[in-house]
């Protein structure tokens, strides 16, 4: 009553001044972004109209390495196409590359997706790299009918939402899990397995697909959820849980452990298992296909571990030699997990664009045309022949098994 009056006055004044400032700044921010978007224009350096192929994935945060593996592959494919020396020869259009960082997070990916949709030059996106980010971003891409070809998001649910613009060049977890179970039963002749998942979306799905197939093959399956830890970027659990969980696994007498999860937690869990006296086979998934698994667990612990991946190792593939060396030149590091898939995804898009241009001219390449083209494309890439089913999944289920050698290197053993 007596002091009340003064407070709102001050509040309002400040409110006024600062929110005008914020509005102004927002506008600045927006104008900056808007100017960076480009429409298809004739470029002086290349020929024909310019189109952008974007990459979306984590370029910072805990999963940045995986994102960079793919980013440089996409960039390389675009550069090669522009140079006119690639398999596509001289193209009647010029390509641009842009990379967008979603940190693998579902809260950021919608705004990243919107920025790509806003950029009218973008005709197709390679990515998003992660399943959670894809789930959050896909409504935006889908509303704009902008094709997304993911090299690495393997969550089965992604293909069931009816997003017509969604494609992926890897087999989903529903393919990987059973393939792993078959491999363990048929090739390794194991009869009992302990399934551990790290409570991540990916691991839960994969373990869920693995278990029924393993049971069907007559294996005895016990399972346990051991969440990823705060030691690693993925988890909420604490590392002190590993010795406890490992002793439970040891007591169960299982012949093998199937670890669904990521390399960082797997390294700690593998150490705990060996420390608890578990001597059986260790088997994990593409989340663990990373040299950091070996450095984290130590070579003596990691040696002999089998790792499956719907991705192929291109370092030993003679057809991929030039890709491998050019990647190294561009990125400054060797190809890694999903580099080859990202390269193939980009080239698939380019091949679609090329055939559109051949059929009805370079200026008729639109987002809708690219989506339509991807639905019918057949393209032979380095990793596999790419052909999509109607829901966007890749036709065929290619799985490969890798092994950690006593020296600590990871080599491909063969298809699962």
């Amino acid at each position, binding site marked *: 009553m007596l002091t009340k009056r003064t407070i709102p006055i001050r509040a309002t004044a400040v409110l006024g001044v600062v929110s005008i400032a914020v509005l102004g700044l927002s506008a600045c921010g927006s104008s900056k972004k808007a100017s960076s978007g480009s429409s298809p224009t004739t470029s002086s350096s290349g020929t024909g109209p310019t189109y952008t192929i974007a990459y979306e994935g984590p370029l910072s945060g*805990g999963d940045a390495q995986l994102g960079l593996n793919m980013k440089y592959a996409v960039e390389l494919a675009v550069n090669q196409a522009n140079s006119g020396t690639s398999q596509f020869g001289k193209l009647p259009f010029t390509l641009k590359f842009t990379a967008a960082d979603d940190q693998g997070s579902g809260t950021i990916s919608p705004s990243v997706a919107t920025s790509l949709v806003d950029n009218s030059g973008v005709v197709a996106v390679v990515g998003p790299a992660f399943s959670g980010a894809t789930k959050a971003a896909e409504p935006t891409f889908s509303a704009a009918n902008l094709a997304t070809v993911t090299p690495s998001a393997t969550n089965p649910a992604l293909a069931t939402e009816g997003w017509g613009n969604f494609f992926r060049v890897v087999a989903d977890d529903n393919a990987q899990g059973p393939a792993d179970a078959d491999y363990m039963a048929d090739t390794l002749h194991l009869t009992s397995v302990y399934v551990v998942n790290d*409570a991540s979306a990916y691991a839960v799905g994969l373990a869920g697909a693995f278990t029924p197939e393993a049971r069907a093959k007559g294996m005895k399956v016990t399972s*346990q*959820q*051991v*969440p990823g*830890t*705060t*030691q*690693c*970027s993925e988890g*909420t*659990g*604490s*590392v*002190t*849980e*590993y*010795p*406890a*969980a490992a*002793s*439970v696994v*040891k*007591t169960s007498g299982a012949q093998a452990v199937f670890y669904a999860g990521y390399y*960082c937690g797997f*390294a*700690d869990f593998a*150490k*705990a298992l060996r*420390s*608890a*006296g578990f001597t059986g086979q260790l088997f994990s998934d593409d989340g663990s296909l990373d040299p*950091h698994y070996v*450095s*984290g667990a*130590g070579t003596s612990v990691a040696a002999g571990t089998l790792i499956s991946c719907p991705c192929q190792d291109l370092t030993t593939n003679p057809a991929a030699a030039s890709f491998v060396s050019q990647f190294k030149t561009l990125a400054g590091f060797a190809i890694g997990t999903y580099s080859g898939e990202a390269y193939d995804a980009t080239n698939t898009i380019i091949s679609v664009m090329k055939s559109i241009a051949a059929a009805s001219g370079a200026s008729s390449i639109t987002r809708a045309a690219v989506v339509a083209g991807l639905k019918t494309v057949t393209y032979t890439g380095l990793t596999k022949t790419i052909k999509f089913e109607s829901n966007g999944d890749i036709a065929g289920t290619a799985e490969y098994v890798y092994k950690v050698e006593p020296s600590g290197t990871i080599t491909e053993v063969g298809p699962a």
Partner: protein
Amino acid sequence: MCFTTNFWNLFIGGLANGFIYALIALGYTLVYGVLRLINFAHSEVFMSGAFGGLFVLQNVIGSKQPSGLASVGLVVLGLAAGAVSGAAVAFLLERVAYRPLRRRNAPRLAFLISAIGASYFLYNLAGKEFGRQPISIPNAFTNGTVFTVFGAPVQTYYVIVAVVTLVLLVLIDRVVALTRLGRGIRAVAQDADTASLMGVNIDRVISQTFVIGGLLGGAAGFLYAIPTGVAYTMGFTPGIKAFTAAVLGGIGNIRGAMIGGLVLGVAENLPVSCIQTSWRDVVAFGILVLVLMFRPTGILGEKLGRAA
């Protein structure tokens, strides 16, 4: 039924965790005693101890596998490096994040918020400078089974943890009970105003308390990291667990921290053979909530002066 299958394995593992919780909990308890404040950033003191131990051992141990007396020396060296790094960070923390606030007699909320800020600052800075991948500590000793309890192996690592913790705890207990520094801490804990009237330099006592807490926390960080490696995010969960242990035993109470740590370590480990490991942290946090609801003074009651 499931409870008994792995009982001794889980019990021993739980004890080992409990010892480490106890070491960290001491840092919370001592600071709480003198400042009446939860030092949220103590988990980062712990983290920096692990990094300190790691860097020193990386430079000392080459590719060879040490054994015997060399192992003992290396473990002691790692502990010392960890303790010194922890103490240095704790000292700086008090200087930068707490002392200016105390000078201004800032509200307690400001201390807590400043501590949270310091915690986020420190661990993210560690991530920036030292990389965001966990790094393994080079082996200072060969881990093997020393003896068995009811068929459950007790490993070298567990023995080291238990011995180091017990020695440090007894040392701290004696220091607080017998030395001039300890008398200062107890005086400030009981009544800071009176203590300052009696000529105790409160600033110095608080600084020393942080340093002692930092020594213990840093050593604990190194111990913790031996099997699991060092990561910039490693402090958060052990920090909360240790705080739970401190509250469980009676915050401000040195022996309480010990008992609380062991009880918590065992209590959260035992159910693992019956439930999904996911629920293990729920058990620990559940214990915290229940203790605070029904016996907020903990098992031994809270008083730094009385117990020491």
